[in-house]
């Protein structure tokens, strides 16, 4: 599975062949389905990509805060592989994009230091036949729901890709001297502040770099996730995720909200 551009499992080929005949699958709710149809898109299939990745080992120093670059690369590459395979499935279906993308990480008892990275979403195609592939010639991806996708299009923006940045950082332990020196005091711990600050900013910068590569004008719905996975509490992965968007039309067609009183009990 190292060649990500053409190496999907055999079962995938059979499933996609059926989808190409017109049947579609999707994890969209009914409301999402209707809203996506309303803005001129049609779901063509539920697509996914997966990668089981051995994350390796990187030594850390007890008293030093630093980025663990090998782990950062591993976490990034694994997600990228899963995403690329999902995009490949979408391309097989002739899709213009994938909406409602979800990225998850699973750990199994049988795989020590290995994790499965999974990307799933619903591939959609434009009903007017005009290509909506992004600047890189790939289907756009987005973690937006059907409702958000509809709303975004009313503002004249269009999604270009789900962008992410990650940084695995080791936060230094405090030495006995440092601990004793501040015992009982209200004091900021600049080492901790700086380390956490730096790690999150690095993750966000990398996410923005991805958006820039896509020629996006912005990123919406950015969220920062923090997990220690299986590395212990002082090693944290900071993951930044969002949907890169491009202003494609000057028109904002969103209706002015109306104040309502719900009569539901």
């Amino acid at each position, binding site marked *: 599975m190292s060649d990500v551009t053409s190496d999907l499992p055999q079962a995938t080929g059979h499933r996609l062949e059926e989808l190409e005949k017109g049947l579609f699958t999707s994890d969209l709710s009914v409301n999402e389905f209707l809203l996506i149809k309303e803005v001129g898109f049609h779901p063509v299939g539920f697509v996914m990509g997966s990668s089981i990745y051995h994350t390796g080992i990187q030594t850390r120093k007890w008293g030093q805060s630093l980025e663990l670059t090998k782990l950062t690369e591993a976490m990034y590459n694994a997600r990228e592989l899963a995403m690329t395979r999902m995009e490949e499935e979408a391309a097989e279906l002739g899709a213009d994009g994938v909406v409602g993308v979800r990225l998850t990480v699973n750990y199994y008892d049988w795989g020590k230091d290995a994790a499965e990275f999974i990307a799933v979403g619903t591939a959609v195609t434009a009903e007017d036949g005009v290509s909506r592939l992004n600047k890189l010639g790939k289907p756009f991806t987005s973690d937006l729901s059907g409702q958000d996708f509809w*709303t975004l299009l009313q503002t004249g923006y269009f999604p270009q890709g789900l962008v992410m940045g990650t940084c695995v950082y080791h936060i230094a332990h405090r030495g006995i001297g440092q601990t004793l020196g501040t015992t009982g005091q*209200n004091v900021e711990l600049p080492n*901790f502040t*700086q380390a*956490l*600050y*730096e790690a999150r900013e690095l993750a966000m910068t990398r996410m923005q770099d991805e958006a820039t590569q896509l020629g996006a004008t912005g990123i*919406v719905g950015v969220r920062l996730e923090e997990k220690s996975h299986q590395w212990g509490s002082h090693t944290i992965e900071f993951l930044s995720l969002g949907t890169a968007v491009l202003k494609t039309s000057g028109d904002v067609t969103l209706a*002015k909200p109306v*104040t309502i009183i719900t009569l539901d009990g």
Partner: protein
Amino acid sequence: MAPTDLPEAAQRRLSEGAFSSALGVSDFAACLEMGLEPVGLVQGFCAMQQGSYMMGGLSRSLSPYGGSAGGYVQNYQCSHGMISNEHRTWGQNYEQTWVETAWMQGFTSSFSRMLEEAGELGAHGVVGVVDTVTRLTDAKVLEFHMVGTAVKVLDAPAPTTPPWSTYLAGQRLSKLFEAGLVPVSIIASISSIRVWAYCTTEFLMGGAGTMLRNSSGPQEIDQIVSAKSQARFIARSNVRAQLGSDSLRGANLELGEWEFERGDYEFQAVLRGNRVRRFKNFDPLPVPRATVRLS
């Protein structure tokens, strides 16, 4: 780390072209509708060690706290006299001003850093602020994390004052403007009251009090009621002191409580809200349309 000292990675991120925003699509669309252009996700952090006043455990069981750190103190004396060494003849509620100071320092530093990032972007304000306080691996270390979306007011001249800020975003912010109010700043305050229960409180709180409760019937626990009331009162007073002639909207009061050992409690009240200023008279909102959901 001085409040004006952003990490190099932050400077680099903010100097890039594409904007980022922590707003969901609905809030993002509402921002555009209001003439606010998101220019970047901004954040601030502070890891803060919480000091102590050496009042825990044995030292406190020997004598009442003298209140030398200032703040609210209330003493309770039981009427039973000396029964045994375990019998708590006195109790006390006292404000932990050093806990409040640490919290406010952490909050203020992370807030300043977030505003500094917004200032770097030339933003007029920060909307949709979310602030969280989490305990780091070291139990006495709190991390203050503040994140929001910096916005520029379309067609407005460059700001000459620090950015305004608000917890509100989307339709809630839109309604604030419609009501003739503008956000000035997010605002927060904390109060921390430690309770060292005397015998009656200890019995009524459950410990060995089953017989006493049964014999005396339902009863208010004065010491606890007083501690919680004071916690709320102090948090409210501190916020009021910061408001000046402005008002508070969208306030949220959270009360947390911890039991360290039998009869030793801490109550914290955290009040967050939006400091707002009137800029025009209130225009009545349109008459709401009644709806019934069919799903």
